[in-house]
C-alpha cells in the first residue's frame, strides 16, 4: 500500500518523516554522487594499506610503501648533502683566494660559514659577530692577529693561548700584580696610552708615562702605539678597546694583564669548515 505523499505547496514528494507537524521534502541525491562517496572510501582503504594511517601500539601502522614524512626529509637531506659534497670537495682543494673568486663556491662558503659560525663562534663573538668586552668584534677593521684571509684562517685553526702546538701566544706582564710598576706609574702610562687616541686622563703625568712606555711597552706595541699583529700586540692608538678604553679599564689591563683565550678549531671542525668560516669572517668587515 504505497501512499505517496506530495507536498501541496512545492509539488515535491515528502520523505514521509514528520516532526511536530513538519515534513521533510525528498530531493533525492543523484546515485553517481553516492557512488563517488563509495569510490573515495575504496580509495581510502588503498591509502590505509599503503601509507602510515592508523594509531597502533608502539606507533602508527607503517603502510606497505614504508613511507614517512621524516623518511622523505631524510632522503631529501641525503640528496642535498650529496649535491653539497661536490662543493665541499672543491673547497677542500681550492685555496682561499680561489674560493672568493668563484661566485658559486663563495655563495656556498658564505652560507655554510655563517651556519658554522652560529654553531661554534656565536657563544663568545655573538650571532652578529659584534663581540663583547673581551671578545673581539669581527665586523670592524681592527685585527689583533691580522685580518687577511690567511691570518684569519690561522687564528681559527690554532686558537689564541689554546691547547695547540702552534697556538697564537704572547704574555703581557701583569705590571701591577708582579710589582714592576707602582700605582702612579701605571696611571701615568695609562694616561700616555689614552692620549694616543686623544683622550685626557685626570692625575696622570704624561711625560713620566712616555718614559715608562718607552721602557716597558714599546718593544711590543711600537713607538707610535700602533701595535704589532705578528706578536698579537693590540693597536693602542685607535678608537677600539677590547677591554674598554676608560681610565679604570686601561689601568686594570696594565696592572693585571688580560691574556684572553680562544680555543683552537683544528680537529674540532673539518678543515673545509675552517675555510668556510674564514671566508665568512673575512667578509664581515666589508672584506667581501
Amino acid at each position, binding site marked *: 500500500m504505497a501512499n505517496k505523499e506530495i507536498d501541496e505547496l512545492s509539488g515535491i514528494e515528502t520523505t514521509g518523516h514528520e516532526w511536530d507537524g513538519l515534513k521533510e521534502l525528498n530531493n533525492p*541525491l*543523484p546515485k553517481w554522487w553516492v557512488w563517488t562517496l563509495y569510490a573515495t572510501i575504496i580509495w581510502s582503504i588503498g591509502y590505509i594499506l599503503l601509507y602510515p594511517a592508523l594509531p597502533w601500539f608502539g606507533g602508527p601502522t607503517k603502510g606497505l610503501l614504508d613511507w614517512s614524512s621524516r623518511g622523505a626529509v631524510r632522503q631529501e637531506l641525503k640528496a642535498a648533502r650529496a649535491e653539497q659534497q661536490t662543493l665541499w670537495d672543491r673547497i677542500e682543494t681550492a685555496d682561499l683566494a680561489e674560493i672568493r673568486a668563484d661566485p658559486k663556491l663563495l655563495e656556498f662558503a658564505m652560507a655554510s660559514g655563517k651556519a658554522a659560525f652560529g654553531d661554534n663562534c656565536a657563544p663568545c663573538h655573538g650571532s652578529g659577530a659584534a663581540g663583547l668586552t673581551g671578545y673581539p668584534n669581527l665586523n*670592524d677593521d681592527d685585527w689583533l692577529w691580522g685580518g687577511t684571509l690567511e691570518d684569519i684562517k690561522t687564528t681559527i685553526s690554532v686558537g689564541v693561548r689554546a691547547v695547540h702546538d702552534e697556538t697564537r701566544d704572547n704574555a703581557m706582564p701583569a705590571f701591577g700584580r708582579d710589582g714592576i710598576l707602582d700605582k702612579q706609574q701605571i696611571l701615568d702610562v695609562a694616561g700616555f696610552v689614552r692620549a694616543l687616541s686623544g683622550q685626557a686622563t685626570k692625575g696622570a703625568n704624561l711625560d713620566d708615562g712616555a718614559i715608562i712606555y718607552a721602557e716597558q711597552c714599546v718593544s711590543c706595541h711600537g713607538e707610535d702605539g700602533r701595535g704589532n699583529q705578528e706578536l698579537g700586540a693590540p693597536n693602542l692608538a685607535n678608537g677600539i678597546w677590547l677591554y674598554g678604553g676608560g681610565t679604570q679599564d686601561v689601568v686594570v689591563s696594565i696592572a693585571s694583564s688580560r691574556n684572553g683565550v680562544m680555543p683552537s678549531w683544528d680537529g674540532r671542525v673539518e678543515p673545509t669548515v675552517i675555510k668556510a668560516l674564514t671566508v665568512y669572517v673575512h667578509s664581515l668587515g*666589508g672584506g667581501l
Partner: protein
Amino acid sequence: MDDTASIYEHEPSFYAEHKKVYPQRVSGTFRTLKWAILGLTLAAYYLLPFVRWDRGPNAPDQAILVDLPGGRFYFFFIEIWPQEVYYFTGLLIFAAIALFLMNAIAGRVWCGYMCPQTVWTDLFLMVERWTEGDRRARMMLDAAPWSVSKAYKKASKHLMWLVIAWWTGGAWVLYFADAPTLVYELATFQAPATAWMWIGILTLTTYVLAGFARDQVCTYMCPWPRIQAALTDEEALNVTYKFDRGDPRHALKRAAALEAKGERVGDCVDCYQCVAVCPTGVDIRNGLQLECIQCGLCIDACDTVMTKIGRPTGLIGYDTDLNIERRLKGEPTKIRLIRPRTIIYVAVLIAVGGLMLSQFLTRDEFDISALHDRNPQFVLLSDGGVRNGYTVRLLNKQLERRTFALTLTGLPGSRLEVVGVDPLADGSLEIGVPPDTTRAVRVLVFAPANAKASGSTAVTFEAVEKASGERIRVEDFFKWPGQ
C-alpha cells in the same frame, strides 16, 4: 495503524537514478549564435598560445605566457611580477561584477553561451550526433543489444572524445611554456613529466565532464545556479514560456475542435519539441528553474514549430514574469534594462576597471628598498668612525639593462661603499641592474669620527636612473653607538 508504521509502508528512494538526456538537433537564431560563440572561444583557446608578441631579446615572444619558474605573467604588452598579483584580484572582481550585470540584464547568459562546461558539452554532443545519430537514433542505439555496429559507433565516439580531450589538455600546458618548443618536445617525447601529467589530468576531466557529467555539473556541482537564483530579480530577462499566450495547451486537431465550440485555446500544441532539444532535459513551460542554463535552444525549437503551423513565433522567448502579468491584465509590456541594479553594477565595473587602469598606467618600472643590518646595527671603527650596513635592492622592470647612480643624503661627511662595485673616477657609484630583474647589493655607510651622535639619524638613499633621469628614493636610519 500508528504513525511509525505509515513511514515504512511507502519508502521513497532518497537516491535518484541518472536520467540520460538526449538533446535533439535544432536550428535557428540562438543555435547559430551558439555555434559562433563556440567557434570563437575554442579558436581563441587552442590558438592563442601560438600568437607571438615581440618584446625584444630579453623576454619571451609569446603573447600570453604564464612563466612559473621565472615568476612572470605576460599578456601582450602587459608584464606582471608576482608582487603585482592584485591585478588578478581586480580582474576577478571585475569578472564577478560583469557576471552579475549579465545576470541582471538577461539571466544566465554565461551558463547558456560562454561557460566552458556548456561549450565543450556542445562540442562533444556534436560528435555524439555525428557518430550515433540524432535523439531518437541515440535512444534506440542505447536500448539496443550490443552488436558490431553499436560497438563501432560507440568506440568511434569515445575515440574522438578522447582526442578532443587530449587536445584540450595539450592546449592548456602551452600557456605555461613556449608553445612551438613544447609542441615539438611533445611530438618527440622530450617534454617534461609535468606537461604530460597536466595533459593527462585535463584529458580525464574534459572527457568525464563534457562526455558524461554534462548537465549534472550544472545541476549538482556548480555553485553559480544557486547564487544566480539569489541575485536575479523580476525585471531580468529570462528564457520564458509565455503561458498567457500558450495555455491552455492542446494538440492541433483537438484545439481546432475546441475552438469551433468557442472555447479559448492557447498557442502551445504540446509537441514537446522544447523538451526534446533541451541539453539539461527540463520543461521550460514549468517556469524558471535551477536546471535551466538558458541557452535559448527551446526558443529555436518552438519558433520552428510555430512557423510550421502558421502561428506567430516567440511563444518561448526572453521575457519577464512581470510582463506576463501585465499582458494578463491587458497592460502594455515594458523592459527596464536601466534600473538601479544595473546602474550600480555598471558603476562598480567602471570604478574597478578605472582603478586598475590608473594603477597600471602609473605603475613604477623602477623601485628601491633598503634593509638595515639587524646584527650588529652599527660597527665602531678604529679611526673612531661608525659604519652601518644595508642591503639595498634595485628593481628594474624594463626589458633593457639599466644603470643607477646611488647616493645618500641626511648624513653630512658620510661615505658610501657598495661591496663589489668600484667607484668611478668622480667618486660616484653606478650599479647596473640586468633587464627585468631585482639586484640586491650590500651597501656600507661610513660616518666620520667627529660626527658624534647617539640614537639614530634619518637618511635617504636615492638612485638616479642614467637613461631617463628618473629618481627613486627610500628612507632608512643610521644607527649610532649609545642610546
